[in-house]
């Protein structure tokens, strides 16, 4: 058996790219997170159907545009460092952090001005869903700040930038979650 095994050609991908392995691992993490976010989304429709309490539509649309815009700046930062454009990458990360802070502040305003309580069914799902999502936004901002500090210290270039790619992917995932949460909370009952 041993002789047979040693005579086999060594597979071309016997030592896969470590960055590729990290990417696949991160997607598996996103998959598990999607189940968590999906459960909260299904609870929203299970408890309330498509009914909803009054929400500030202008604020909801505003913070949605801000979060989508932050994905563009995050993409710009990642693409820039892939091409050794360090200055653009730094400003891309700074822009993403600032837009993330604006989004988090917007959620805070929505919470403080909500005309329903957490004891009502819609209040339960609204505060749970936005709270879970906002906690990911805040953790994403912390990770972006850590990546920015490393970038400012001279780390990362076109050959070695996985930490930035990973954090930016995480930020995009948080954006994808909001892409589903926004219509489920603000739009599905009609504007």
């Amino acid at each position: 058996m041993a002789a047979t095994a040693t005579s086999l050609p060594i597979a071309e991908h016997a030592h896969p790219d470590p960055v590729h392995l990290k990417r696949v691992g991160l997607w598996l993490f996103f998959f598990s997170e999607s189940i968590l976010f999906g459960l909260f989304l299904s609870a929203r429709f299970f408890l309330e159907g498509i009914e909803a309490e009054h929400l500030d539509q202008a604020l909801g649309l505003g913070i949605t545009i801000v979060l989508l815009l932050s994905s563009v700046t995050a993409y710009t930062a990642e693409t820039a460092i892939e091409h050794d454009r360090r200055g653009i990458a730094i400003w891309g990360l700074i822009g993403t952090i600032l837009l993330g802070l604006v989004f988090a502040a917007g959620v805070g305003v929505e919470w403080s001005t909500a005309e329903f309580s957490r004891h009502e069914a819609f209040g339960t799902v609204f505060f749970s869903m936005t709270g879970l999502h906002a906690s990911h936004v805040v953790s994403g901002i912390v990770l972006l700040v850590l990546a920015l500090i490393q970038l400012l210290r001279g780390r990362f270039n076109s050959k070695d930038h996985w930490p930035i790619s990973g954090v930016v992917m995480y930020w995009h995932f948080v954006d994808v979650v909001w892409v589903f949460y926004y219509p489920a909370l603000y739009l599905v009952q009609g504007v």
Partner: protein
Amino acid sequence: MSIFKVGWFVAVALAVLTVVEYIFAAEMADATARFLGLTLSAGTKAGLIMWFFMHLPRVWRGEEVH
């Protein structure tokens, strides 16, 4: 700035879809149609982000930028 061209294309698409879904939610009276339309819009936006921003094809192509 051609390296950022894809990003701007996706940004415009996301902006258009977001405005369209808001107008659709405001104008569509039928609840089932509204739900299905918003689900389609959200799925399209999520697909754009995952495909172009999160580089989903790199997962099975195995190609990495070094």
